[in-house]
């Protein structure tokens, strides 16, 4: 059986064709322009992982939100649960880019970190 994937590693967006055996394991890959694409395709077939980005409420900040992202990809099936955790979080200003907002979110081994700095609201 063949499965066709669009690689999301970089903007090239290679179309990768994976040949699967009867157990669904990858036996051959074609179409990837680089090894990262091949790694992506194997991962995607075995256990799809995603990075997600969102924002977290800031209290007492010069802006109401701080943008955040994951430090490592999380299982695709956990995205909505991680979003729940992100939505229910809030952080007091000031926030510095790189600050850990939620450590090891849901025990998935990935931190939610700030991607910008937010000063305290000027009084």
């Amino acid at each position, binding site marked *: 059986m063949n499965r066709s*994937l*669009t*690689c*999301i590693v*970089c*903007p090239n*967006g290679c*179309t990768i064709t994976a040949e699967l055996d009867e157990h669904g394991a990858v036996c051959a890959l074609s179409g990837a322009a680089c090894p990262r694409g091949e790694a992506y395709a194997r991962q995607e077939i075995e256990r799809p992982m*995603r*990075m*997600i*980005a*969102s*924002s977290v*409420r800031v209290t007492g900040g010069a*802006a*109401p*939100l701080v*943008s*955040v*992202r994951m430090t490592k990809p999380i299982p*695709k099936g956990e*995205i*909505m649960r991680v*979003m729940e955790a992100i*939505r229910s979080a809030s952080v007091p200003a000031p926030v510095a*880019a790189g600050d850990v907002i939620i450590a090891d979110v849901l025990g998935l081994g990935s931190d939610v970190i700030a*991607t*910008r*700095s937010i000063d305290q609201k000027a009084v």
Partner: protein
Amino acid sequence: MRTIRHDAVIIGGGPAGLAAAAELDRLGVHDVLVIEREKQPGGILRQCIHEGFGLARYGEALSGPEYAQRLIDELTSRGMKVMTDTTVLSLSQDRALTVVSREGIARIEAGAVILAMGCRERTRGALAIPGERPAGVYTAGVAQAYMNLYNRMIGRRAVILGSGDIGMIMARRLTLEGAQVEGVYEIMDTPSGLPRNISQCLDDYGIPLNLSHTITEIHGGARVTGVTVSAVDAQLKPVPGTQRYIPCDTVILSVGLIPENELSLEAGIALDPRTRGALVDEHLQTGCPGVFAAGNVLHVHDLADDASLEAEAAARSAAAYLRGELPCCGVSVVCGAGVRYALPQRVSGGQDVPLALRVSRAMGPCSIVLRQAGREIGRKRVIRALPAEMIHVTLKADQIGGCEEIEVSAE
């Protein structure tokens, strides 16, 4: 009115303008002024909280704010500043600018100018969608700003018109925030955004992409209550009998970006009707000597990284111009079969030039072919060519003979 003078003035402090400023300083042009309309530098990157920026320049996937911060940190480390909260009101042929800020109006004379104003979004008015005029219709970038900068949820049930990248990214963003996205409707038969965004923003969340479909009516009084969508034929005309009503409270338009060239037009700079950006030579110099253009104001890019790289090239040209070293460009580059636009539109023949182009329709494996007076002078094979993906090909100086025009085609 105060008059100040700078060797180089950059209009716009986004991914193009900031990169150009650092490059000028690196090249020994230290008297550089970057003018930014917003209160903070960074441009559109500030609201692009998703990751995927920086792969080309930094070799890692950054979010928009992080990518912007890298550029800002680079300027800070060079002791450079961006003049924020300042709007350029006019630009003249002799590179004099009128700017307004809290300090009042000032006149700035520039040795060289780099246009880096970016682009703006095509709106509902430009599409003439029939129907009511309720609240709840947003362009994708405005929706993005509300959600990512101002913490305003824009709706619960959305329909997205157009398959531009920002529309798809907002489809994912809305879904992550708990809204329901009914689908993306694209009038053309090919998506206008990148394949990876179809995969990671739509397919991942089960959001259908309906090609050859458009919104034919928006319904609602005070707020959107629904839209009518219809299939379109090969002439893009709605097919009678295919109408379908979709209840929703939000319509997001992702129907194209237009380079922001009001200042350029006022300065008498000629634009290319295909790109809607300035006509430029291989130095990215516009028809007005000493005025250069780069990034989305020149042509809409797929990637911020590419806008920054192009701006660095414009900065190198501006530095050479200030030294009085720019050779003139007498060879035209024109579009042949299958090519929607190619840029730059003029070259000198004296050096290799990276051409950027887009095809006019989707093609499978094909070649981008460069010809001069019928003679092939360059060829690049690609495994696919999509209007959504900018293609880069190098025009080799040693292949150019004479000053006949060079034709770029996809075959």
